[in-house]
Structures are given as structure tokens and as C-alpha cells.
């Protein structure tokens, strides 16, 4: 039973992460689908500059109603880091 729940939760998280990655892929034209993974360093996977930072912040605000600050971005390395931040703030609100 416990195993089943763990599996269900993992599956749910995985689905949400897939959705998060899809949202990012939709925003950046030069990012080919399937390249960006949960453990990817997002700064190295697609071009990282101040405009792309704003695009990412805008997407997170529209899709998740969560605000990412400059510090959040500096402290995040992987897609998973970003996602954990968002997930954390969503569950608090």
C-alpha cells in the first residue's frame, strides 16, 4: 500500500515536472523539446541572459502565480531547483 502511494506521488511529481519543462520549452524557440531535463543546468542548456530571465519569471507568474526574484534565480542551478522553489511557494499560499 505504502509502495503504491509512493509510486503515485512520484508519478504526480514527475507529471508536474514534465509540464514545467513543457512550459519552459514553449517560451524559448531555440530550445529543442527533450533536451531540457529536471537535472539540467538551465543556464547551460539554453541561452541565459537578462531578457530570458524575464521570460522565465513571466511564465512562472502566469502559470503558477509564483514570483521568482533575482536572488531566486542566482541561487538556482538546475530546473529542479527552480521547480522546488515554485512548488514550495505554491503549497504555502
Amino acid at each position: 500500500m505504502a509502495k503504491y502511494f509512493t509510486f503515485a506521488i512520484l508519478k504526480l511529481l514527475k507529471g508536474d515536472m514534465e509540464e514545467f519543462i513543457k512550459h519552459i520549452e514553449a517560451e524559448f524557440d531555440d530550445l529543442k523539446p527533450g533536451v531540457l531535463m529536471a537535472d539540467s543546468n538551465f543556464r547551460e542548456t539554453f541561452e541565459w541572459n537578462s531578457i530570458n530571465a524575464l521570460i522565465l519569471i513571466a511564465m512562472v507568474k502566469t502559470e503558477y502565480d509564483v514570483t521568482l526574484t533575482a536572488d531566486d534565480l542566482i541561487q538556482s542551478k538546475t530546473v529542479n531547483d527552480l521547480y522546488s522553489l515554485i512548488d514550495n511557494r505554491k503549497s504555502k499560499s
Partner: protein
Amino acid sequence: MALFSLSGIKISGIAAAVPENKKSNANYQWIAIRERQSLMKNIGVETRRVALKGTTTSDLCVVAAEKLLQELKWDRTGVELLIFVSQSRDYLVPTTACIIQDRLGLPHSCVAMDIGLGCSGFVYGLSVIGSMMQSGAFKKALLMVGDISTLTTCYRDKSTYPLFGDAGTVTAVEYDSNAPVMHFNLQTDGSGYRALMIRDGGARNAMSRQSFEIKKIGKGIYRSRLHLELDGIEVFNFTLREVVPNIKKLLASTGGTLASIDFVVFHQANRLINETLRKMLKLETDKVPYSIRDFGNTSGASVPLTMITALKNPLETGKTKLLLSAFGVGLSWGSVVVETDRICIPDLIEV
């Protein structure tokens, strides 16, 4: 909470003047071609109008006002209120509105003053001029809003240089006891004043030799303490946090809905900000006009400039219900619901 309504005032006409000198961001060689393309697509600025040295905001506003007064056939002796909203005044001292009163030949019975606001300036200016007029003491007034922002941006600062354009606008406001009520919601959060500022040259930090030193701030960002600085992420998050609740509270207080609004005119901050606001409010694209592609972020002039360049036909030919929302430097922001009825809009003037 600064939620209030004004009655007895109407907008009779709006005119704008921009410099003829056009700069294209496709040629902004300080940044790589790919970044320029991304800038034009996402920030949304393709070309900007840049005033030549010596041209002031008041010069643009005065040219626009001459044209508007002529088309409205207003007798200037009846214009007894003039408000100039700008952060690029002719001189530190005196007030620019006084000089404009004389240049336009307005009577000595005219009340003239400056308001030092930027992006939010049109909505704030309209509220001040409307508040003074609603008693009926003034029959005709001019609200001038504009900035020459390019004077203080540094070519080697990619966060400001390709964003801003220059413009001067004038709005003719008239007392009319039958005019529909205007509803305002104005707000301020001065804790964010550093997000958009010029550090030196005012009383806090007087101009010194060090004020002119250009320093590296970040990748692609060099400037001195006399240049305009902008914290993009800070301004972006402020806008996404505050503007939608401000609009929702305004509409709730009037019992109105967005569905009853014909057009929502946002300050032209950047395309990404404005598109995000549009999506958050679930507005169709044809309800949200833009001027940023051709003129850039024109500070306080952006709302009236967008009305002139994108909504000339509906504003001239019929009745419209508008929601105007402006936000930025201060931090200062506000919205107004205003109804118009066949207002006079001369063609955009190039100086």
C-alpha cells in the same frame, strides 16, 4: 486607499509630438545580433524617437498644444490651468509649467505647475487636474505629460538605452457638468525607489566630479551616477504583483467589469510585462493597444501616445470606455476608468 471618483470633467482632445530622429534597435551594435533580435521580439521595441540635443520635453508639448488649441478652436484666454508632468524639466529652477504658460500665451490668471512623476504621470496628472476642475472654477485646462528619457540613458547600458523613446503629449480637459464620472485608484510604494533612479544631481547627492565616472555594473551594463538606472527584474515583479490587484479593486469599487471596457491602455513598459498583464487579466489582444514597437517606452507619455497612435479612429468617431493603467518609477502606479465621446485627435506631429 486612494479610490475616488471625479465628476464634471471630460477629455476634449489629445495631441502628441515626437522627435523626427529615429533610432532602430536593429542597429544597436553594443549587443550581439541575436540579443538585438530577442530584444525587439520580447521587449518589443524596434524603433525609438530620440530628441536632438537641446530639444526639451516642453518643446514637444508646446508644439502639440499649439496644434490641439488650433484644432479645438479654443480661445487661449479661457485656459486657466496648466499642469506639466515630467521628470525632464527645462531647468532645475524654475518650474517648467510657468515658462510654458508664457510660450503659449495663456493668461496671467492661469494656474501653472509641474508634477515630477514618470511612467504613472498621465493617470496622476488627470486626477490632479480633474480634482481641481470639478468644482467648476476652471472651464478649460491643459495636461502636458512627457519625457526626454534618452538624455539620461547610457549607450553602453543595454538595460536602458534600447528601451526608452522621447515624446511630449497634451490633453485638453474641459468642465462639463454632464460628463460621465471618472474612477481612479492611485497607489505608491516608495520603498522601491531605487529600482528606477538617477543617483546624482539632486539635493541628496549633489553633482560632483565622481558623478561623471562611467563604471561597469554588469554584463553589457556601464553607466555613471548621472545616468538613468533600471533594475529590470525588480520593476518586472513589482508590476506583476501590483497592477492586476489595483485594476480589480478599481473595477470592484465601481461595480464594473472588464467586459464593459472597450480598451485597456497600459503604460508601455515593455512588451513582455504588458503581455503578461494582459494574460493575467484574460484580455483579448484587440482590447490592448501598443505603441512600444515604434516608439519604445515613452515614460508618462506612453498612455496618451498609445491612444493617439493606436486608437485614433474609435476615439474620434464614437463613444469609448477606457481603462488606463500606468506604473513605474517611484514606485508609483494607478488606474482610471474614463469614458470618452468623439475627442479631437490631431495627427502625430514630428519635430
